């Protein structure tokens, strides 16, 4: 069973190279390899979640511990990792289905699939790796592939957005590398579990390294003061890449790592927990206030990404504050569960919204809402899926966004942070307002302009993947039921919170 772990890296990387070699002789092999590979990994992930509840640990090269000091490269799948694996593989598979017909407009089509598979390799590797330097290497693989994918259409605005994204991403990566250097200087080891036992608790040295990591990974995750690259990059990229970037990449290389390091590696300190929660609240407010005035669909969605990531950070941050101050552990577990549930939900509804904007753009040729109107009579599938995604992001029952936002707000009220709950409700109302604006100006309530009277519905692959995602948006609200909660979320919350089970199973394995 442990031998299944390297499959997450071997399959995407091997398929990327095979499609690079065979793509010169057989046309369109990249599409098939991408879809088959991601379908296989999705099935593997669902099998692991349902049937294998224990932590899987894999030592690359088979080097055993010497004097109980881990010297091999570790790959580790525990409860928190399984949630991210599910999100990455399922959203990746649906976006790959969508991009079968979307990429016909590009001349360099085979290279899209190679870069996409490399990005998946980087994200999977980052999530399953058990030491911080390998996390950095896979982070760079995913990031460089995404720089190339953002600039894929080679138009003016795409190149400029990719350049801005690259400069900020490179500065963030260098801060992360410096933080890794400082940790190695103090502890002499690179393994996450081993560092947790060696790092001195909460001195000025540890606080400096924590700040370096928050800034570095915050630049990758687009939290509040570091969000300047996100509107340009996510609105200029091709639509399936926007869906992958906004739905999966900023979570796998930003949010996941911050929570893995600050819960499992550093000792919890109240000031750092407060700093992270404050950054989350500011992201929520800034994102949604800047989003209302936008007339470009994808830029509006990109600003909303910033605000919803703020929700996730708020949910988990409340749990962090409660744990650091020795508060009530049940409320902390509840709040962390709400944050992780919102992370899954956001990937799906934000991915669906970006795919919809791509369908609108291929059919009508414009992204400006002032020039669109009345599309609902010609594009019924797109209208229905955008409607369900907008209801999900605004938090209307029975869609999944309602349940996750409800859990976060209830946890905030129970923990005594009444102002935070109030701000969360206000932000949700403003989100509803801006999505009502999107629905009105694009689909309903205006007559179709003359030049758009000949548009048709999207091609079959795009419509199929959008419909599956809309159905999943409804289906994931079933995760609130306690039986499903036990399977999916309780291992994750235990892995983050309680007595650091990864350390126990890593050291004494």
């Amino acid at each position, binding site marked *: 069973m442990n031998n299944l772990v390297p499959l997450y890296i*071997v399959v995407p990387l*091997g398929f990327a*190279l095979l499609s690079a070699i065979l793509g010169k002789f057989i046309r369109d092999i990249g599409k098939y390899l991408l879809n088959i590979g991601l379908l296989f990994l999705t099935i593997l992930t669902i099998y692991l979640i349902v049937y294998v509840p224990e932590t899987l640990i894999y030592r690359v*090269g*088979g080097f055993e511990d010497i004097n109980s000091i881990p010297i091999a490269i570790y790959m580790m799948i525990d409860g928190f990792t399984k949630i991210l694996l599910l999100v990455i593989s399922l959203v990746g598979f649906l976006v790959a289905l969508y991009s079968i017909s979307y990429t016909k407009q590009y001349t360099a089509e085979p290279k899209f699939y190679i870069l996409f598979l490399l990005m998946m390799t980087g994200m999977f590797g980052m999530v399953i790796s058990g030491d911080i330097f390998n996390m950095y290497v896979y982070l760079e693989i995913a990031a460089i592939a995404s720089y190339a994918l953002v600039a894929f259409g080679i138009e003016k605005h795409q190149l400029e957005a990719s350049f801005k994204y690259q400069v900020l991403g490179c500065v963030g990566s260098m801060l992360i590398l410096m933080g890794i250097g400082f940790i190695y200087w103090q502890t002499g080891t690179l393994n996450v579990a081993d560092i947790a036992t060696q790092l001195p608790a909460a001195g000025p040295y540890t606080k400096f390294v924590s700040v370096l990591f928050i800034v570095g990974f915050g630049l990758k995750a687009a939290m509040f003061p570091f969000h300047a690259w996100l509107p340009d990059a996510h609105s200029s990229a091709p639509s399936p890449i926007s869906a992958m970037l906004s739905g999966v990449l900023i979570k796998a290389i930003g949010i996941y790592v911050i929570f893995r390091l600050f819960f499992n590696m550093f000792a919890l300190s109240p000031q750092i927990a407060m700093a992270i929660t404050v950054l989350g609240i500011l992201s929520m407010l800034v994102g949604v206030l800047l989003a209302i005035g936008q007339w470009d669909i994808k830029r509006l969605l990109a600003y909303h990404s910033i605000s919803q990531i703020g929700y996730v950070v708020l949910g988990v941050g409340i749990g962090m504050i409660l744990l650091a101050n020795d508060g009530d552990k049940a409320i902390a577990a509840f709040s962390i569960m709400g944050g992780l549930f919102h992370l899954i939900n956001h990937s799906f509804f934000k991915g669906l919204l970006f795919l919809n904007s791509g369908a609108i753009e291929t059919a009508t040729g414009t992204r400006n809402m002032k020039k669109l109107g009345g599309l609902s009579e010609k594009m019924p599938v797109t209208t229905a899926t955008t409607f369900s995604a907008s209801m999900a992001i605004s938090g209307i029952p029975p869609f999944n966004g309602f349940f996750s936002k409800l859990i976060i707000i209830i946890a905030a009220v129970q923990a005594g942070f009444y102002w935070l709950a109030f701000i969360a409700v206000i932000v949700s109302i403003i989100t509803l307002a801006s999505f009502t604006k999107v629905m009105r100006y694009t689909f309903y309530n205006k007559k179709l302009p003359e030049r758009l009277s000949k548009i048709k519905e999207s091609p079959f692959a795009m419509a199929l993947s959008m419909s599956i995602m809309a159905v999943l948006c409804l289906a994931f609200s079933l995760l609130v039921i306690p039986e499903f909660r036990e399977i999916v979320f309780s291992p994750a919350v235990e892995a983050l919170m309680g007595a650091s089970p990864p350390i126990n199973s890593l050291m004494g394995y």
Partner: protein
Amino acid sequence: MKGMSIIVQKICQIVAPVIFLFGIYIVIHGHLTPGGGFAGGVIMAGAFIFQIISYGSDLPKLQKKEFSLEILESSGILGFLIIACLGLLFSTVGIFFANFLPTGKIGELVSAGYIPLANIVVAAEVSAAISLIFLAMIVFKEEISDDR
């Protein structure tokens, strides 16, 4: 782009094979001296780039080279992945990346398991990749069409 004068071309004819041979030496002795796959691969690419700079660029010939360089690069990494997967099949432990060839005496040329093979494969990949970067940047600028 145009080539350089006749003196530079003659010196390139003499020196470029020597640079290539030096690169191969660093790659093969990667487990005994500093260097290894990446550094040797860069030197091997340096020989190729030196030839292009001194003789000028001839577009159709270099486009054919681009095709074979891409295949060489991807085969390089695929070979590395296959060496890693062979550890699953052939070693006694049955685990990814295990060292399954016999390790000889320390200091001999044929020793240290599969590390020399890995160095050779990585050098093939790195030299192809750096030559491709050079070709993409300098030579194919004539293919970029201006914006509308």
